[in-house]
């Protein structure tokens, strides 16, 4: 029985501005979903709301994993339930070694009942495992000794996100790749890394414009977001179509959503 991430009529606001206006989506382990849409549609907001960022308020609707409502849970509790967000711009944590950080993370995620101060996963086994994973992902072992994201290039930061995903083995991985300006190395790292990791145990939501990312990881479902809601769902062909032709047709078919989106884009530009 594969796990189900169910998003029902989700409304989210940030700093008192309504962004998501009733998102509905179901993702099963083993499925790859793509989420596309023009700027201002609310794609990143959905990602952060799912991960539990404190600034994103759910004003109505629910997020459930296997029927358990996680809408009120803090970010760390969601991680323990199998949620993972690969960030667009991973933040720097100075002085914290990659290896130490990941060891602590997996200690909590693999043992959700672990209390603060209790033992971490044993060092010997951990070392073996992370070395093996880094080998599979073609990563220099030196990487593990560096400080988390400190002085990392764009590609290295993505590698770091992929490594975390490989070690944490989330049930549901959300990849926020909304930045179309990202360097090609970074995109390649994510594309290839994800292809290695995706499988029947992982439900993936890729939020992106990047063709290559979707080429390497063809989605079973493509959702189009406009004005804070999902207006259409199709398969991989829809993604290709949008790449080729843009969002004009979508806007025509959904004028209300298009209006909301235009408003949001204007507001974003004014900030």
């Amino acid at each position, binding site marked *: 029985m594969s796990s189900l991430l169910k998003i029902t009529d989700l409304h989210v606001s940030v700093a008192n501005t309504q962004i998501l206006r009733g998102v509905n989506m179901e993702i099963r382990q083993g499925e790859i979903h793509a989420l596309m849409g023009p700027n201002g549609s609310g794609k990143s907001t959905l990602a952060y709301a799912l*991960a*539990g*960022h*404190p*600034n994103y308020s759910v004003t109505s609707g629910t997020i459930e994993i296997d029927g358990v409502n996680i809408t009120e849970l*803090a*970010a*760390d509790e*969601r*991680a*323990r339930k199998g*949620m*993972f*967000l690969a*960030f667009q711009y*991973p*933040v*720097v*944590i*100075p*002085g*914290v070694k990659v290896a130490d*950080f990941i060891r*602590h*993370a*997996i200690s*909590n*995620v693999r043992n959700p009942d672990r209390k*603060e*101060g209790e033992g971490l996963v044993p060092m010997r086994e951990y070392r073996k495992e992370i070395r093996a994973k880094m080998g599979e992902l073609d990563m220099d072992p030196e990487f593990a000794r560096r*400080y*988390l994201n400190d002085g990392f290039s764009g590609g290295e930061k993505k590698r770091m996100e992929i490594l*975390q995903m490989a070690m*944490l083995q989330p049930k549901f991985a959300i990849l926020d790749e909304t930045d179309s300006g990202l360097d090609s190395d970074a995109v390649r790292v994510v594309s290839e890394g994800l292809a290695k990791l995706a499988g029947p145990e992982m439900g993936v939501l890729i939020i992106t414009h990047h063709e290559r990312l979707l080429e390497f990881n063809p989605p079973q479902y493509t959702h189009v977001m406009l004005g804070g809601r999902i207006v259409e769902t199709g398969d991989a062909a829809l993604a290709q179509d949008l790449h080729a032709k843009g969002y004009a047709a979508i806007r025509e078919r959904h004028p209300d959503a298009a209006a909301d989106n235009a408003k949001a884009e204007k507001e974003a530009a004014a900030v």
Partner: protein
Amino acid sequence: MSTDAPVRAEVEIGDYQYGFHDSTDNYEFKSRKGLDAEIVGQISEMKKEPAWMRDFRLKSLEIFESRPMPDWGGDMSDLDFNNIFYYMKAAKEQGRSWDEVPDDIRKTYDRLGIPEAEKKYLAGVKAQYESEVVYGSLQEDLAKQGVLFTDTDSALRDHPEIFREHFATIIPPEDNKFAALNSAVWSGGSFIYVPPGVNIEFPLQAYFRINSENMGQFERTLIIVDEGASAHYVEGCTAPTYSSDSLHSAVVEIVVKKGGRFRYTTIQNWSNNVYNLVTKRAMAYQDSLMEWVDGNLGSRLTMKYPAIWLMEPGARGETLSIAFAGDSQHQDAGAKMVHCAPNTSSRIISKSISKDGGRSSYRGLVKVEDGASQCKSNVVCDALILDPDSKSDTYPYIEVEEQEVAIEHEASVSKIAEEQLFYLMSRGLTEAEASAMIVTGFIEPLVKELPMEYAVEMNRLIELQMEGSVG
């Protein structure tokens, strides 16, 4: 330091806050309270010191009495000099029983996973004598190389020439009021002499000293590193160290001769009733390297500014300082670098953290004397303030009398960034664990310079401090 039961009573010895009982059985000798020439004389007599030392003590007492209290730094209004026992000589089997050790301190030791014997030592339950067996062979090794490593009292007695040659030459009693106090009533401390060309690979620890009292109130340490020699000395520990003595005023004097290298590492975590006022200074000669690694975690008030005087060309000095101020604590710490010769360089890295209303200050001096051209100095001082009640101050003093020098000073103040917290929490760390990790990362430049066991303990201590303190 225990955060759940801060001790904020007036400084009063004899009023043992945790219910210790001061039975005279425990002490061979105890001076009466207060400080005067008679008491100073008694101290010297008890120790059977030569006349010159007795006279030195008495002169220092006069200096102490003539000096005003400093009008800067921390608040010492509760400090009553007349209400302190200045000299106590513990009986051989110095014993508090383990049961008398405060509960929260025992719990902290358990959480930190400190070995049994060490726990007892830290709590003042057992004296050092057991270590004779463990460290005896180490002492033999050192002796073979001509290294002298003993307590200061014994050094005065057994190595009078070399002792007298250097004693009080780096920090004379006139230097400041508390140096004068220490000079009058000093007892215990380490004496180290490393002969020319000898390199001691492993860190020497106060723990190794198998005679005399450790953790004394008025320790006096004297270290001489001869030409081309090198060593590393470590004292203190990260675990909370209970002391019923509320005034600790130590003096540390160090000489590093030509081509020598020396590092002095201190981690103090005194209980919350302690005023920790320390004068530490090293003189670094030609082409030598002197390093202070200074960790201040405990005490009610610490005032400490490890100094390096760069006396001859090629001398280098480096100080890594970290101060952690929690509830009811004030860490006024920093460093001093005095360039007395050309082509000298210095570096100060200060990391301070304040939380729960604590106050953490950096107070530092970089001085370049006239004639000390072509000098370089770099100061980085970073402060992390963990909540709105806590404070951090910076008092940097830069005095430069030369034109051709490169002096840099960078300072930053930050709090834990929301985005950093969210990132770590989204990987399963609780908010407290994430905060602890960020704080640990903040002090990493210092922690990586510590011997392994200290580093592990330090990190665990930070986790403990951060636990359950969020919200």
